[in-house]
């Protein structure tokens, strides 16, 4: 409940600040991306923290969702004029498409374990980026058309519009995402993930994480529960991708590359594995941090890197941790990284 409360309180405070004009335009521009990254981090936490498998290709699912969302929104422009409703359809379509990809990718990926599983997710993320880079999608009189050569080769006819233009990405996207939509998506994500974790399926997933053989021997279908977690995580990432993409007028496939996957992974690890609230806080703080450091101009990313390293050292070094606990007893704010986690009330 505390997690929901935190999100709702943050939303209300921001709404009040926005109404009073206290939020800088740079931060206002970051609001939708922050909500998208929170959903990304929470959904990745399901794979990494709860299922216990390292995924380095989460941005691939974001990409699938983003471009599906953009195409859905563009195709529905005339039939669904209401932007909020169109956004809802785009998010659902993005989520379903990414979930489907998650299932297809999960079939080979979930046969592997550990670092090998991680590298295959990385490989799928890169493949998705490369393939989207060569796709041309347009909408014309005869419906949606897909090609791999050029926008003109689609033969869209009169009144046709190219939605996805190969390496140029999606162009002329209608910006229909809003902060409120992002906030609702976070709540839906929390509802799905927290309920999943607390359900029979969630306990089965964690049992598989902690000891696969023991779980299998008490009759838990390892494949089924690993797949459940993986697909749920992918679908939510897809919805986040659609939300993210529909916040910009142009979206390129390169945006959702390995670095984005890593960025989200940093949120998850820094927030605490399996700790949903930690993911939310880490995603917010680390998205705002480069903006806050803007005063330092060109050294800001350097400082960001140093802060990241120092935080990892401070929270994981055995000696430093003992020292922290001595000077600040009962301090629960320091993110503690451990194999398991039960920080989801």
């Amino acid at each position: 409940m505390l997690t929901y409360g935190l999100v709702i309180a943050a939303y209300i405070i921001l709404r009040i600040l926005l109404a009073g004009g206290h939020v800088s335009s740079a931060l206002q521009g970051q609001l939708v991306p922050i909500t998208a990254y929170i959903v990304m981090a929470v959904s990745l936490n399901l794979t990494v923290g709860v299922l216990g498998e390292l995924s380095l290709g989460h941005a691939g699912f974001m990409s699938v969702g983003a471009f599906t969302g953009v195409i859905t929104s563009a195709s529905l422009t005339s039939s669904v004029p209401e932007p909020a409703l169109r956004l809802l359809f785009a998010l659902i379509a993005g989520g379903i498409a990414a979930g489907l990809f998650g299932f297809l990718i999960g079939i080979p990926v979930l046969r592997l374990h550990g670092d090998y599983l991680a590298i295959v997710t990385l490989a799928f993320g890169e493949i998705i980026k490369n393939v989207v880079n060569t796709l041309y999608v347009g909408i014309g009189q005869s419906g949606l058309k897909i090609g791999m050569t050029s926008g003109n080769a689609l033969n869209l006819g009169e009144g046709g519009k190219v939605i996805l233009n190969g390496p140029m990405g999606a162009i002329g996207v209608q910006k229909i995402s809003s902060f409120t939509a992002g906030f609702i998506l976070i709540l839906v994500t929390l509802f799905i993930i927290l309920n999943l974790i607390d359900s029979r399926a969630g306990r089965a997933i964690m049992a598989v994480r902690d000891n696969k053989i023991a779980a299998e021997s008490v009759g838990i279908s390892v494949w089924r529960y690993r797949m459940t977690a993986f697909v749920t995580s992918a679908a939510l990432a897809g919805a986040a991708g659609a939300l993210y993409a529909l916040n910009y007028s142009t979206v390129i496939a390169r945006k959702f590359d390995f670095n984005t996957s890593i960025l989200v992974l940093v949120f998850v690890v820094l927030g605490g594995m399996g700790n949903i609230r930690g993911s939310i806080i880490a995603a917010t703080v680390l998205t705002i941090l480069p903006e806050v450091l803007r005063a330092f101009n060109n050294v800001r990313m350097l400082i960001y890197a140093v802060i990241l390293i120092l935080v990892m050292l401070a929270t994981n070094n055995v000696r430093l941790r003992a020292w922290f606990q001595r000077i600040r007893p009962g301090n629960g704010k320091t993110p503690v990284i451990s194999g398991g986690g039960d920080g989801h009330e």
Partner: protein
Amino acid sequence: MTFLTYLISGISLGSIYAIIALGYTMVYGIAKMLNFAHGDVIMIGGYVSYMVTTELGWSPLVSVLAAMAVCTLLGVLIEQLAYKPLRAAPSLAVLITAIGVSYFLQNAALLLFSANPKSFSSVVPIDSIRLFEGKLVISGTAIVAVIACAIIILGLTWLINKTKIGKAMRAVSEDKHAAQLMGVSINKTISVTFAIGSALAAVAGVLLVSAYPILMPTTGAMPGIKAFTAAVFGGIGSIPGAFLGGILLGIIEILGKAYISTQLSDAIVFAVLIIILLVKPTGLLGKKVLVKV
């Protein structure tokens, strides 16, 4: 004949990947960590060589040695400052720290050398060889890359199998605690591994920018990821595996670019990796780990 040309340039690119992959695989085998900053050490090596040849005007050979010296120092320094305090930490924490180091190196290079791409003139003084009346051209860089890779592989095999430090490395990789009980200094062994890996990264960096002469702060990122792929491909932790994986990856990439699609060549490389891992889940030459109940 064109096929042969592609094959040779594939082997040469593969040799560079193999040299980088060796650094990944050695560190993984001994410290059990994925050192994501390795690709950026390559980039630093390239810049050092660039500065020494263009700014100081010294000979290319000196620049290679300088790059190796700087990268070795850098590798050991990174290990001491960022990874050593996390020896007992979970592997994901170390992974994120490595990513932090990678960001740090990229942004430090951005500040020092600016984002403008520098055009690097090859350090290899050998002219291209023309065979079959000029139908088959082999660049000097390609020859040097293959020879360097061969020397490095032979040298490393000797080091690991015949020397005392090599024995320590094998022991630490097999069982850290047992090695410690036998009097092997784990910290020293890991430091030496990082030093060797980083020196190899410097060589790879100079060769890479000699073959593809554009130098940017992000130059090392993609070759780093691909070499990591190569290491997994061959079976991470295995030195012959890294060699085999690197060469195969280079060949697949160049042939894919030539015969299938330029834009999709990376996708092809990763697709082959996925297929290999499905057939052999621990890579081509990786050890099969049996799970005991």
